[in-house]
């Protein structure tokens, strides 16, 4: 398998150093990396799962809106960034592994390197209770 573009590799290196959950996807939406804090949300370890297609990871953390309605994968910021190649942001609820609902904000950005190719996107999850 050919190696990822350097900007994707360096994104992983950054994610590896952060204490907030970070998800990195390729241009097709396949989740190609998530860091240790993100493993707590997904309840899975990257070393065990490896890359996951969007249909698998998009529903793993049970995203819901303010009214308790499920949010489909295509409305998640990361998926919108993949589709539109622009930053996206959304605040919503997820259900942690222990069943506790947590209100989070997600910001995703496109990853476009020096070759000017769209290499994928990364998203940071922010627990709103932490800043509250």
């Amino acid at each position: 398998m050919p190696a990822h573009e350097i900007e994707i590799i360096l994104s992983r290196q950054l994610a590896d150093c952060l204490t907030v959950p970070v998800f990195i996807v390729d241009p097709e939406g396949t989740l190609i990396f998530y860091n240790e804090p993100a493993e707590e949300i997904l309840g899975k370890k990257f070393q065990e799962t490896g890359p996951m297609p969007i249909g698998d990871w998009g529903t793993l953390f049970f995203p819901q809106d303010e009214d308790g309605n499920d949010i489909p994968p295509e409305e998640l910021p990361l998926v919108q960034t993949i589709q539109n190649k622009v930053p996206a942001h959304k605040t919503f609820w997820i259900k942690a592994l222990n069943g506790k609902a947590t209100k989070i904000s997600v910001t995703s950005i496109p990853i476009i390197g020096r070759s000017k190719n769209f290499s994928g996107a990364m998203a940071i999850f922010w627990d709103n209770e932490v800043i509250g």
Partner: protein
Amino acid sequence: MKVKLHGTRGAYPTSSTNNQTYGGNTSCIEVINGKERIIVDAGTGILGIDFNTSYKSERIDILLTHLHMDHIQGLAFCKPLFNPNKEVHIWGPGGSPESLQTRLNRFLSPPLFPIALRDIPSKLSIQELPSTTFTIGNFVISAEYISHPGPTVGFRIQCGSKTVAYLPDHEPVIGKAHLFPEDDWVSGFNLAYQSDLLIHDSQYSKKEYMNKVGWGHSSLDIAAEFCSRTKAKHLLLFHHDPAHSDDERTQMFENFMRKVNYDFPIELAVQGDEIEV
């Protein structure tokens, strides 16, 4: 195919008597196949090339990994640039809002240099490296961005069945003791994979590296791990730190070799050496 090492030093050239074993000139190699030659990087090592006897043809190709001074310093004094009968093709990384020509012109113009790039008398062609494989004569060349501050590429140069990978300035993993476990997450992997000769950055000892994280260079340990991971067949440790005497460098290398047991040859690059690939 043959590789000639004209400059193996990193950072800055040195004329110290303590640095004559591995040489004092900064990065420059020639890749040679019969009468065909390409020059890779234009550190002060390029000044050691005998252009009168080795470059009878009009055309000269110079590939640049990046524009840090130790890789371009010799360009200003490279004789073919001042010969109107020569056609000099300079290939280097794009990836910046400014063109390669504009960036080179910052160095090759007053006040840093008396002559502006536009006034250089040779037929100069400055080309930003394509993201696809390209050819120069019988050389098939791939360039990819690698982990080093600023736009920096490494090269994979193939001729016939033989391949040389050249990554003189490369920090494949930043601040970690080992590469990521998956091959597709290793910077430069495609370039070095199964190459017959890997010329790779190895500026620091493992201990020194811990104080130089993010500076864009590798330890001996990471260079060897990278070679092993990419299944390259021969590792040439390159980009020697001029702050080390050659005796210190030799000692560092011997200490390293006592600790490891790789199944490929590992050598320190020596200025002036020719390596048959």
